[in-house]
């Protein structure tokens, strides 16, 4: 046992140094920046395009006084919503030939007129290619109603700030749980793929032969898994530190604006790291077993596809439990070892009790030991095979 652990340590130390000191690790650390940058760039482009596009306008053919009251009512609604979401208005004085004026306005391109409102406040009538139950028409109804009855400024509404209400917390915490679950899933999948690629590299350049002659092959399996786990924990620490720094710099936004998890941020983050480790060890073992069967990158891609799809299904299963932590589906997903870490992290965001986490971690640890042992056994039997490949159902006899 000591020999095995010592060998695992030597391999883990080498893999960890090679991973953390490589250029690829810098890209790994910068990984989360790319989606943010892309989001920012495309969001900015979208906003610019939206702002530059001329919004369709409703032409208001009325007296100046009526338009003043209609416009004031619109501004009051625009105070509660983004301006771009509130129907745009333009004023036109009535002309002698009302029908001709309406026809001319509907054909206008500058500004693009969507509909024409005539009859002032007394007898309003809308004409144009709009449905009577559309959002724009609904807003116009509100604006006209407000314009008819408005007594000037809206009444004062004193506000007493309290903590989140139960109703809002359930929804908000589910969001925290969902975000945590997604991070856990994608990080685990990414790392499992990385550890598998490393194994293939070693298989192809035959270093594995030197290692297998010196230490039990279980050492290689466990050493590789834990090296990648340590590297990823280093990455997570960097990300969390960078995130905390960012939050300090930008006092609003980030975690400050995210709904507080039920167990509190410190416990949630600690549980996140532990559940990540469990999830990674379970999934990483499976991917390493797959890597042991393959001898080329192409084979790895083919073999890992079903496992990846299966994990996506497991993720989907776990995601259904978010928002209903005590439902039957959630309990089943919490018991199923491959979805348990994902479900329990989401639970930590929504339920304050800590004892289910202790039970779940013990249960998951049991499965980690079982799958590690099974994985190491299969790995040992298949990773150093040469000659014709044995049928998979004969592996146990190999």
């Amino acid at each position: 046992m000591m020999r095995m652990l010592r060998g695992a340590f030597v391999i883990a130390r080498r893999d960890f140094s090679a991973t953390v000191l490589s250029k690829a690790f810098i890209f790994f650390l910068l990984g989360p920046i790319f989606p943010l940058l892309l989001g920012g760039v495309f969001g900015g482009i979208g906003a610019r395009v939206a702002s530059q596009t001329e919004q369709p306008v409703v032409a208001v053919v009325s007296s100046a006084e009526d338009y003043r009251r209609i416009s004031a009512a619109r501004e009051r609604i625009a105070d509660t919503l983004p301006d771009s979401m509130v129907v745009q208005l333009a004023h036109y004085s009535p002309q002698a030939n009302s029908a001709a004026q309406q026809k001319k306005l509907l054909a206008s391109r500058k500004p693009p007129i969507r509909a024409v409102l005539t009859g002032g406040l007394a007898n309003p009538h809308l004409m144009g290619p709009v449905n009577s139950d559309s959002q724009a028409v609904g807003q116009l109804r509100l604006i006209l109603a407000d314009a008819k009855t408005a007594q000037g400024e809206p009444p004062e509404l004193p506000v007493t700030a309290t903590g989140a209400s139960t109703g809002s917390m359930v929804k908000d915490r589910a969001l925290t749980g969902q975000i945590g679950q997604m991070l856990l899933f994608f990080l685990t999948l990414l790392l499992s793929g990385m550890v598998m690629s490393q194994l293939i590299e070693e298989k192809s350049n035959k270093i594995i032969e030197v290692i297998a002659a010196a230490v039990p092959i279980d050492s290689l399996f466990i050493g590789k898994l834990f090296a990648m786990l340590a590297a990823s924990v280093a990455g997570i620490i960097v990300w969390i530190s960078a995130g905390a720094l960012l939050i300090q710099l930008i006092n609003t936004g980030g975690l400050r604006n995210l709904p507080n998890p039920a167990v509190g941020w410190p416990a949630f983050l600690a549980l996140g790291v532990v559940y990540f480790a469990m999830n990674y060890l379970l999934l990483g073992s499976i991917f390493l077993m797959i890597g042991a069967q393959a001898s080329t990158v192409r084979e790895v891609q083919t073999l890992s596809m079903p496992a990846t799809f299966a994990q996506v299904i497991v993720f989907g299963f776990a995601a259904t439990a978010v928002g209903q932590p005590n439902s039957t589906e959630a309990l089943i997903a919490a018991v199923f070892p491959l979805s348990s870490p994902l479900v329990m992290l989401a639970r930590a965001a929504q339920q304050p009790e800590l004892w289910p986490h202790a039970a779940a971690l013990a249960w998951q640890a049991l499965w980690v030991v079982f799958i590690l042992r099974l994985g190491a056994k299969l790995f040992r039997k298949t990773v150093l095979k040469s000659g014709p490949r044995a049928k998979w159902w004969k592996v146990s006899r190999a």
Partner: protein
Amino acid sequence: MLRQVSSSVATPGLAVEAVDLVKDFGETRAVDGVSLSVPTGSIYGLLGPNGAGKTTTLRMLLGIIDPSSGTRRVLGHDRPLEAAQEIGYLPEERGLYPSMYARDAIAFMGALRGLTLAEGRRRADVLLTEHGLGDWSRRSIRSLSKGMAQLVQLLGTIIHKPRLIVLDEPFAGLDAINQGRLEELIRREARAGVTIIFSTHVIAHAERLCEHIAIIASGQVAFDGSVAEARGRLRPIVRLRTRVSEGPWRSAIPQDARCEGDEWVFELPEGGPEPLLRALLDGGAGIETLAIERPGLHDAFVAIAGNKAAAAMGTTGTGQ
């Protein structure tokens, strides 16, 4: 009758002992009942053509793979990995991490065999300097030439001062100068009492280095013994050139003597050289030249493993 390596007592004087090792890969039998006895402190050659089962045999001896049946005992251990810290292994297909420094690659191999990283680095620097690679100690493996990288891996094989060194086709890919250096290194380790097993399909290397050999063909051991014993299986070859083409002397040479150009070639008859010489002189052969050649390992290999195996080796030996 089958014998089995005793699970409790190692045979004195043997570093490695294997009995009836069999390895099946699916329906294919790669090794079929190989038995070997490697004397402690010897240089032991495993000869055979590609695909004969040499590498699979070595992998079983080292515990990289388990035999389908049969037993082996390495340095007194039934489980070879228990003796891993006393064994050095250079596989046929070389493997090093390209981004590692030369000294770190050697130290890593030492760490796998029980050395601390610091001690491994210290020894690596000494070894690299001794072998003319001191300036390359802190250079990455990918910046080394192929020969240098092979030397680095070989130094990694001996860094922990093993009692048994296993080299699988160690000369493959080396130029003549590096082959000479490697031969010298093998001899030096052997002089220090280390047992060395190496596989090769180049008979000349085995002939120059080995005291003991095993000839493997088609997964089976065709011969296991000393080089002298292998050569002793063949009678010396006589090459005779005479001035007289016909005469009574012809009855002195065997019926199956063959004529190669202007000389007769045949195995030395049972009685030895003296009766032959006397008969030739009495028969009026008019001896121009007469040479008695001791058979080389190549000839012994052909005789033992067959022409087909020798052709598969595709090599030359001293007998040629």
